[in-house]
């Protein structure tokens, strides 16, 4: 077959066959390392030999001994160990088990069991691997007489050991005439081995007897060739093995698998191979380190992260049975082979292999990959790969880290500020220093600073941050053109098949032109970065094919002089500036330096706005006034400080506003400072190019160019109306102001987030819809994590998808990149803000389906959540408070505020109900009542964790608000004595307190049990003492998550419980009581909302349910209603009256409103309460018709005379049914009541029914114009 044919095949498959220089470089580096380490290892071990000389193994999956041990053995015995499989160089693949797809890929390779190596070492010579082959292949090959002997041996072997006769022996060995030397040797060995081997063992392993004669020769040939060839098959395997469950789930292997591999931290690698690090000594760890560094390195610039591609992309091809990389490999082999004399046979062989590979029959071995997983990463094998992948990607992706640094630093600044707030004034070391300095120099003329209080903003920007950090310990590079990039080679790589960089380049060029042409297009790109005047098309030129596509993250000023720009591809940059030195990424250092920069800044003031990891704004207005120094002095001090602490230079621009400060920085750079005085502003800004204005990106500047505007001075000539016409009202005005140097944006240390999103547009290659769906779910979980991290919920969910532009090449020029894409976005507005990943996922998947895309063309996926609001609404109405912890609030604000923020209040629905339940007590709650519970042990509550130990007094004030205790006379003293000491103390304390305030305490004792009621059982009493008023709310604090309404606790059941359980329940109820006490404290705004007396709402509890009717309006409170209602009831039934809300009656009441961030509460999902826009009508919590019926029956049969309130409840319920358009149920209810009540011996019931019916009929009449027909 011709070379072209192969190429075609490769690109047709899916284009993943290619590879770049990165992998080649990596492999060669690994090889070098291996060579370097080998002698050391030999020395260490003492034993060494050369039995494996010429053998290069690649270990695939789990083996025993492990891959690392094998590597060591190979070192010791003169072999080669390849971390990545290279068809041309790797002579043997070591594996014990291979999945089907792998077998297919590796068909024709020497796949050998590891015993081959150990046995060979034992034998002291290289045994024939034939014995140890894992699988045999079906081949029809030309077979020469050279190995007749071996053949016969094999024949007999196979006859005895193999049940399947479908492997003609003549196919098993196919030596090449041109390699007879090696081959015959092999064969001889194989014959020898055949005699000695244990045949039965092989019955499960088919023999692969393909002698790939070309291996050794090609190996030698390859030595001189640039090592850009065949790499990847091995890579796949590696990647697969690294990914737990990767091959179990094909969905996973696409697109988002790579993060795991690509962004592995060194720690991870160590974690994966802990035993080996120990075993094999430093070289191993060294290797791992380098390897992992290799992997991370690229991930910092967009280019970089993309160049992880190799590992990543290959995964995507790993699971499908077809392996395009393989075809590539074949293709690569071909030219070599043809140059080889006498290789026509070989060529034929190769063809045969491929053919055979494609139609061979294999069995799936899914567990093989599992084995591989567990072997390669013991630390991780249990981890569910699926869910964690995206978050893992984001947690490992350095690029992502850098992008989040800004938030981190913002939060750092926030933390500083709140610390200052709480500590009542921070120590500003830098400020002090400056002060001293000033004091020292005050005699001199230096301090002639005019004390004009003019606002002054400092813009501190590190000079080419990545570079200066990268070279701060390499003085040799100072003053040289340096670029930070992942590429280290000459800047050239081979072009991957399937990619068409020219086309992309042309596209971008066209697009560029288009931008210029489109004058009226209103859709503008607002790029926040002011540095958009860079080479727009990335410096791509037409011979880019051969150039490295690694992007330059940052380059030194020397390099910039040569025309190199940030973001340029390294290959192109190298052309522009041949001396360009490349420096690898060093994320740890970046972070260190950035942090120390921020620390330095924070030592002067806390009015810092973090712009990025190397850039910050300072509002120095007050500082300057306080110190009485000039801005220049301050800037100098700051710069010196930074230089001293970080070893990197920073530039400072100063101006009266942010805009001017930033513009001044441009002038200040590099390593300088510039104070743009207000009197200079006009002249200064006139000459500035428009593109230096923030918000003026490429598209806008081209548009402006078309208007004849190139500088701000030109822009000033345009009228505001013109600008607004061209750019829209807001942008127009902003431009109008900016070009005059006006900017009223404040320095915000705390920024409100507008959206939370997660996006991946790298290496997205789906083959099936399910893959995309599960990717979306994972992405949603990441969004959830971020939302939670920010403490926000959003209502609008936007799905952004990048889709390959029709006609664009299947494979972009950039490896794994998205290439030319169309962007699509769809959004949905939810009824309620959410931060639930699941919900977001379902919505996103719906949106995704609605877009009706071809998943294969998807190149990027992003999820964005907008319309954010704080997930813990904040009572003071400040909107989302980000990065502020409850602790801060507690510390910073007055104690009076703290209960407001009480997270316990967020006990779901508790708030409205309990607030109402407590409403009348609340007013009289003695603020100084004894700390009833603070001294209690509270097992299983979250309070201990929530309240910071520093604030015990808050706890106290919060907790003692109201614990209801019946009056002493009503308490059975034996019960009291039986109580735990602390509870008893608490009760007694309340009594004491009540005695002190008799006027209010009478209020407190809500409907006390009348003496006529039988004495409660002891255990019940315990609870009653503590919590007479417990609406059935799930208690989120503590172990007991769902407590039934206290009154529903069947005393018998309770008494039958083991003592520990009883105590636990008691404490749970007590906590609930506390929670409600908190609610009560803050519920004044909420309480009036629920004034309907309700039938008791039976909670779904663990304990026995009981439906009882009771109600009491606040006015009617007292023992009497109960007495009337429940004559002769059991003690449990005569517990104090209840007022419970229907869930229906919470108009606009958001439960989130009363909750606060806290360690415990944020974890509690509130989805239950959230998505219930129109609750079903319930009667005392009952909703199913059967429950209603039970309730009614109990009501009618147990009570001789219905209470008016109860009747009204029923009427209300019926009315709701009408409103809910559920006439059927209404009809059934009415008919049931009719039967019940008219059958009742008491005529009151009959009257009651008539009353109900009349009322219902009125409602029905009003609604439907006719009345119910009651027969």
């Amino acid at each position, binding site marked *: 077959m011709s070379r072209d044919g192969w190429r075609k095949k490769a690109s047709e498959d899916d284009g993943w066959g290619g590879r770049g220089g990165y992998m080649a470089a990596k492999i060669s580096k690994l090889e070098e390392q291996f060579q370097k380490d080998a002698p050391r290892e030999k020395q260490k071990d003492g034993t060494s030999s050369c039995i494996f000389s010429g053998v290069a193994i690649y270990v695939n999956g789990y083996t025993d001994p492990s891959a690392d041990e094998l590597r060591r053995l190979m070192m010791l015995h003169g072999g080669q160990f390849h971390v990545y499989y290279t068809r041309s160089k790797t002579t043997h693949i070591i594996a014990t088990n291979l999945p089907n797809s792998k077998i297919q890929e590796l068909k024709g390779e020497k796949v050998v069991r590891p015993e081959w190596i150990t046995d060979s070492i034992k034998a002291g010579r290289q045994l024939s691997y034939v014995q140890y082959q894992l699988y045999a292949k079906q081949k029809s090959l030309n077979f020469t007489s050279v190995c007749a002997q071996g053949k016969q041996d094999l024949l007999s072997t196979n006859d005895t050991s193999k049940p399947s006769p479908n492997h003609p022996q003549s196919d098993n060995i196919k030596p090449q005439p041109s390699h007879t030397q090696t081959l015959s040797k092999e064969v001889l060995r194989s014959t020898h081995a055949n005699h000695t081997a244990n045949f039965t063992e092989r019955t499960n392993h088919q023999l692969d007897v393909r002698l790939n004669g070309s291996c050794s020769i090609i190996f030698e040939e390859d030595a001189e060739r640039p090592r850009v060839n065949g790499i990847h098959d091995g890579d796949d395997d590696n990647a697969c093995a690294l990914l737990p469950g990767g091959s179990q789930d094909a969905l996973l292997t696409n697109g988002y698998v790579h993060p795991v591999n690509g962004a592995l931290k060194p720690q991870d690698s160590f974690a994966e191979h802990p035993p080996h690090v120990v075993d094999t000594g430093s070289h191993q760890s060294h290797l791992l380190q380098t390897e992992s560094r290799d992997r991370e390195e690229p991930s910092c610039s967009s280019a970089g992260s993309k160049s992880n591609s190799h590992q990543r992309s290959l995964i995507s091809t790993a699971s499908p049975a077809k392996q395009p990389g393989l075809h590539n490999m074949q293709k690569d082999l071909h030219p070599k082979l043809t140059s080889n004399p006498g290789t026509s046979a070989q060529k034929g062989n190769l063809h045969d292999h491929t053919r055979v590979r494609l139609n061979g029959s294999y069995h799936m071995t899914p567990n093989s990959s599992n084995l591989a997983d567990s072997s390669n990463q013991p630390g991780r094998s249990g981890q569910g790969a699926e869910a964690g992948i995206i978050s893992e990607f984001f947690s490992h992706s350095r690029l992502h880290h850098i992008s989040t640094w800004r938030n981190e630093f913002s939060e750092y600044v926030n933390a500083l500020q709140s610390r200052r707030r709480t500590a009542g004034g921070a120590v500003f070391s830098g400020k002090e220093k400056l002060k001293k300095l000033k004091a020292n120099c005050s005699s001199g003329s230096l301090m002639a600073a005019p004390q004009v209080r003019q606002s002054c903003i400092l813009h501190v920007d590190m000079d080419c941050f990545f570079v200066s950090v990268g070279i701060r310990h390499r003085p040799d590079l100072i003053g040289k053109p340096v670029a930070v990039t992942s590429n280290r080679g000459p800047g050239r790589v081979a072009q991957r098949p399937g990619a068409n960089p020219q086309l992309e380049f042309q596209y971008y060029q066209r697009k560029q032109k288009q931008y210029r042409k489109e004058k009226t297009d209103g859709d503008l790109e607002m790029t926040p970065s002011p540095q958009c005047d860079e080479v727009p098309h990335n410096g791509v030129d037409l011979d880019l094919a051969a150039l490295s596509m690694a992007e330059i993250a940052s380059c030194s000023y020397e390099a910039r002089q040569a025309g190199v720009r940030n973001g340029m591809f390294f290959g192109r940059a190298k052309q522009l500036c041949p001396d360009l030195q490349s420096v690898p990424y060093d994320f740890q250092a970046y972070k260190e330096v950035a942090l120390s920069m921020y620390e330095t800044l924070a030592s002067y003031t806390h009015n810092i706005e973090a712009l990025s990891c190397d850039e910050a704004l300072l509002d120095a207005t007050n500082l300057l006034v306080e110190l009485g120094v000039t801005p220049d002095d301050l800037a100098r001090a700051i710069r010196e400080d930074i230089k001293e602490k970080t070893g990197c230079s920073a530039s400072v621009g100063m101006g009266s506003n942010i805009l001017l400060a930033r513009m001044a920085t441009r002038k200040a750079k590099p390593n300088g400072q510039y104070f743009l005085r207000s009197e200079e502003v006009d002249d200064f800004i006139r000459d500035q190019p428009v593109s230096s204005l923030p918000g003026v990106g490429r598209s806008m500047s081209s548009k402006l160019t078309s208007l004849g505007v190139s500088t701000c001075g030109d822009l000033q000539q345009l009228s505001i109306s013109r600008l607004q016409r061209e750019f829209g009202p807001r942008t127009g005005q902003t431009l109008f102001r900016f070009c005059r140097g006006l900017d009223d944006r404040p320095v915000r240390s705390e920024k409100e987030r507008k959206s939370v999103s997660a996006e991946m547009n790298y290496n997205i290659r789906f083959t099936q819809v399910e893959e995309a769906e599960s990717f979306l779910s994972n992405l949603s979980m990441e969004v959830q994590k971020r939302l939670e991290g920010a403490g926000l919920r959003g209502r609008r969910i936007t799905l952004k998808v990048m889709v390959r532009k029709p006609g664009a090449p299947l494979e972009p020029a950039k490896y794994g990149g998205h290439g030319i894409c169309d962007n699509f976005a769809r959004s*949905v507005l*939810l*009824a309620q803000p959410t931060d639930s990943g699941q919900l977001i996922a*379902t*919505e996103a*998947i*719906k*949106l995704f*389906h*609605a877009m009706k895309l071809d998943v294969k063309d998807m190149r990027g996926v992003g999820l964005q959540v907008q319309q954010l609001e704080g997930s813990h609404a904040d009572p003071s109405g400040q909107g989302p408070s980000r990065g502020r912890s409850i602790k801060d609030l507690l510390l910073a604000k007055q104690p009076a505020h703290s209960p407001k923020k009480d997270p316990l209040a967020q006990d779901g629905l508790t708030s409205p109900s309990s607030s109402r339940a407590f409403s009348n007590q609340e007013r009289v709650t003695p603020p100084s009542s004894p700390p009833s519970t603070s001294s209690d042990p509270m097992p299983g509550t979250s309070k201990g964790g929530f309240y910071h130990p520093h604030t015990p007094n808050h706890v106290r004030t919060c907790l003692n608000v109201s614990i209801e205790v019946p009056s002493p006379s009503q308490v059975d003293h034996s019960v009291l004595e039986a109580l735990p000491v602390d509870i008893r103390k608490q009760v007694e304390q309340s009594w004491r307190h009540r005695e002190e305030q008799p006027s209010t305490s009478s209020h407190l004792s809500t409907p006390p049990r009348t003496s006529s009621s039988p004495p409660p059982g002891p255990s019940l009493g315990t609870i009653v003492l503590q919590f007479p008023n417990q609406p059935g709310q799930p208690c989120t604090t503590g172990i007991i998550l769902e407590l039934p309404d206290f009154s529903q606790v069947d005393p018998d059941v309770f008494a039958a419980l083991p003592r520990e359980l009883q105590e636990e329940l008691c404490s749970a109820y007590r906590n609930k009581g506390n929670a409600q006490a908190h609610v009560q404290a803050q519920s004044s705004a909420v309480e009036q909302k629920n004034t309907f007396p309700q039938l008791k709402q039976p909670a779904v509890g663990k304990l026995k349910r009981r439906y009882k009717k009771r109600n009491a309006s606040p006015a009617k409170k007292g023992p009497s209603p109960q007495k009337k209602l429940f004559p002769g009831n059991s003690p449990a039934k005569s517990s104090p009256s209840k007022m419970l809300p229907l869930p229906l009656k919470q108009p606009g009441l958001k439960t989130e409103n009363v909750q606060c961030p806290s360690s415990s509460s944020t974890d509690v999902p509130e989805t239950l309460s959230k998505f219930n*826009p*129109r609750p079903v009508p319930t009667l005392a919590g009952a909703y199913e018709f059967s429950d209603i019926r039970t309730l009614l029956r109990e009501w009618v049969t147990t009570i001789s005379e219905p209470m008016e309130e109860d009747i009204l409840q029923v009427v209300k319920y019926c009315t709701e049914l009408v409103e809910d*358009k*559920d*006439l*059927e*149920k*209404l*009809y059934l209810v009415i008919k049931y009541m009719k039967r019940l009540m008219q059958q009742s011996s008491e005529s009151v019931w009959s009257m009651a029914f008539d009353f109900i019916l009349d009322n219902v009929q009125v409602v*029905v009449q009003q609604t*439907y*114009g*006719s*009345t*119910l*027909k009651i*027969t």
Partner: protein
Amino acid sequence: MTTLTRQDLNFGQVVADILCEFLEVAIHLILYVREIYPSGIFQKRKKYNVPVQMSCHPELNQYIQDTLHCVKPLIEKNEAEKVVVVIMDKEHHPVERFVFEISQPPLLSISSETLLSHVEQLLRAMILKISVCDAVLDNNPPGCTFTVLVHTREAATRNMEKVQVIKDFPWIVADEQEVHMEEAKLIPLKTMTSDILKMQLYVEERTLKT
């Protein structure tokens, strides 16, 4: 797996299709059960897995079909509040009104699997309820006719007058006489609540039919 959202264009259509299909079955059945037409013109068919009666009179069928065809666009847009099958006596005074009250819940989304089987279940229940409704209704006087009314939401009527779905088959505003029923009694038959649709069927019956 397909999921549908209200944002989907065909969401309303799906609901309308399901509903109109059901209404057709229901109208035939009502006509049969209430003995508006001689039982000879009805044939037993199977729908929703239960036996139903369907007229085989082509003109009647055409009328019902055309009517529902015109109802469909309204349902698609969620503009139909009620579809009423009115049974009138000889003097064209209604004696019974079978009211299908339709409200589409503001719920966000549905998934197709749960939808179809569940909705079918609910519709089946409704059909069964219709087939036994004569037990709770008084007999109709002889010589009854029927008509179909639609109660629209808001200003949908105006559009209906402008746009004729089927030529020469326009909607006309109902007579007050047809709508209004003296001393009506309301007999709820069935309420169904599903993800896509909430519908209740009740009968308003004139107290004195003869």
